[in-house]
């Protein structure tokens, strides 16, 4: 028995123990969350996060694992949602004796079905060809959804009632908390299933085809078949998320399968980090929080999401997870605490930059939308008169001061970083 074999066996055993622990903790957290965040608003947000996690993970089967950049992943989400919605109506009529919590499976099967059909011609090549086909197909389906009013319900969409299903252990799924647990259950199951898939031959070869499709063909694998498997399964999980959406909202409209939705899932995966399995999970959490919480405070929230996306692409292409992972070496050296003070210091001018930019944007937006008699906007709890020069000058000063502060503190942070990672000596 070689040392490499022993090493691999111990690594696999260690990884398994860690994974089991992670799933167990995740399950406990999912069960416990509603006790911590018990308001109906937070329960509804957590349900949305669960749906977004499934959807974003399914998207990353294409982008991160398989190297397929899709601009139309909402098509599978939306079609799964619509079919699940119709199925819910049949259930409510008593035509299908299916318990409501199993509806996402219907969405999944529909996503799988359409993934199979579209995959037969879109997975031949990756790159631009794949991206363009995904865009075209999604546009086509979004357009059709407004034409076939009978099936898609036109602009009003299709709605139903989730409480009319057959008895399921005494739950009727009227209260949002019950829906949350259904979403949490499916999010956990889907995440485990997608993780396990990445450890199978088809999942490993998806990585190989992503890295070098040509060479994969010279070790026995058709690049098209490898992509096809990922594509179909990705369609399945997107449809599953769509079916869960149908349960949570009891209404599915054209908005679930249009380009905005396709763009949103791309942003989630990318901001979270496509190179890591948990990247899309983090992205889904942050994007959903931005969408639901930030939108309560400002109409410009989409602009901020866009800025965040641009900043991610420019400064941390490996996403927020990549940013966290960069701290791994310092964590192992137990020198992470040396970064605390520099981070705290630089966060002050950074916050000034963010507040300066955000404040100027908000003020400009307010100035363009307000009436002649309403000239005062309350920003950061300070009333600001847009006709006066003071708030503008103040925000510009805040921004410039912040930029100068960041520039001044940057060398100190870089030194601390090098120190924490043992540059010059060590390792």
């Amino acid at each position, binding site marked *: 028995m*070689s*040392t*490499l*074999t022993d*090493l*691999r066996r111990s*690594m*696999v055993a260690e*990884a*398994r123990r860690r994974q089991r622990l992670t799933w167990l903790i995740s399950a406990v957290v999912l069960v416990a969350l509603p006790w911590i965040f018990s308001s109906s608003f937070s329960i509804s947000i957590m349900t949305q996060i669960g749906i977004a996690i499934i959807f974003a993970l399914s998207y990353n089967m294409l982008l991160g694992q398989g190297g397929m950049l899709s601009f139309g992943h909402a098509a599978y989400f939306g079609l799964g949602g619509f079919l699940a919605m119709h199925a819910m109506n049949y259930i409510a009529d008593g035509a299908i004796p299916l318990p409501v919590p199993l509806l996402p499976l219907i969405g999944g099967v529909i996503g799988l079905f359409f993934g199979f059909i579209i995959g037969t011609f879109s997975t031949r090549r990756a790159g631009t060809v794949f991206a363009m086909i995904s865009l075209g197909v999604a546009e086509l389906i979004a357009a059709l959804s407004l034409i076939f009013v009978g099936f898609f319900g036109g602009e009003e969409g299709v709605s139903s009632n989730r409480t009319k299903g057959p008895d399921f252990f005494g739950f009727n799924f009227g209260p949002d908390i019950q829906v949350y647990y259904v979403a949490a259950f499916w999010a956990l199951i889907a995440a485990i299933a997608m993780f*396990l*898939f990445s*450890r*199978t*031959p*088809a*999942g*490993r*070869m998806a*990585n*190989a085809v*992503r*890295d*070098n499709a*040509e*060479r*994969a*063909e*010279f*070790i*026995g*694998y*058709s690049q098209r*078949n*490898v992509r096809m*498997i990922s594509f179909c*399964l990705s369609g399945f999980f997107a449809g599953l998320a769509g079916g869960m959406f149908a349960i949570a909202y009891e209404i599915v409209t054209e908005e679930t399968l249009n380009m905005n939705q396709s763009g949103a899932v791309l942003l989630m995966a990318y901001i979270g980090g496509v190179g890591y399995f948990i990247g899309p999970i983090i992205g889904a959490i942050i994007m959903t929080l931005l969408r639901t919480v930030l939108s309560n405070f400002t109409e410009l929230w989409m602009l901020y999401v866009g800025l965040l996306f641009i900043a991610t692409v420019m400064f941390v292409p490996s996403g927020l997870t990549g940013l966290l992972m960069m701290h791994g070496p310092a964590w192992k050296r137990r020198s992470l605490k040396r970064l605390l003070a520099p981070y705290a210091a630089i966060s002050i001018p950074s916050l000034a930059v963010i507040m300066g930019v955000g404040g100027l944007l908000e003020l400009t937006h307010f100035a363009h939308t307000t009436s002649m008699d309403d000239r005062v906007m309350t920003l950061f709890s300070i009333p600001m008169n847009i006709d006066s020069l003071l708030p503008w000058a103040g925000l510009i000063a805040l921004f410039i001061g912040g930029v100068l502060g960041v520039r001044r503190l940057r060398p100190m942070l870089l030194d601390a970083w090098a120190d924490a990672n043992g540059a010059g000596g060590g390792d």
Partner: protein
Amino acid sequence: METAIRLNRLHKSFGPTPIITDVNLDIVKGERHAIIGPNGAGKSTLFHLISGRYEPTSGDIELNGESIGGLPPYEIYRKGLSRSFQVTNIFARMSVYENIRCAVLWVKGYKYSFWNRVDNMEDVNERTEEILERINLADRAFVPAGLLAYAEQRALEIGIAIAGGNQVIILDEPTAGMSHSETEQVVELIRSVSEGKTLVMVEHDMGVVFNLADRISVLVYGRIIATDTPENIRANPAVQEAYLGVEADHE
């Protein structure tokens, strides 16, 4: 004698330009066969035709008596032929271990399985480890392949080609860009992995060619001008004129 590869009146042209012209060649099972020739003679194109990267314009290629001309690369691989590349062609973001393991999966019969986990496939993993020991990369197993040194990447390149255990192996310039001592190691590696198998290689290093090959074919402007044992090739006046003479002057 049984033939492993038979090229029968093989032609390949790109547009109006002929690259391979009327090539006939029998490669005998179990031999080590080298293809030499000046730059631009069409050696790599010939390998691309045999391995399925290019389709022949006309003529036929047989592998173990079965026609494979125009089949996609993965079909040819499944029929028992695998290859390495002149320019390193690996899975850069995956670990060295994963590179080799992926090259073992098909032959071990797991195909497109999406229900078995690779960590549970003891046969695949043991084979992977055996190959890693063989190509001397065991201590680099969990490094991303893209971070390997050049010579290590070349070793991995050969490792991927031999991992599946196919009976016919074709290597495109396995020692390209290597130092003298690295070349010697690779020659020993090739000698051991091709034991009992059929090996075809394109090679520029005449030391390697005359050291390893049982027979040599000389390709000049898309035609094979001679196929013979190393001694006879060295003595062949047409070869000397077309190729070796020029080499000899330089050395």
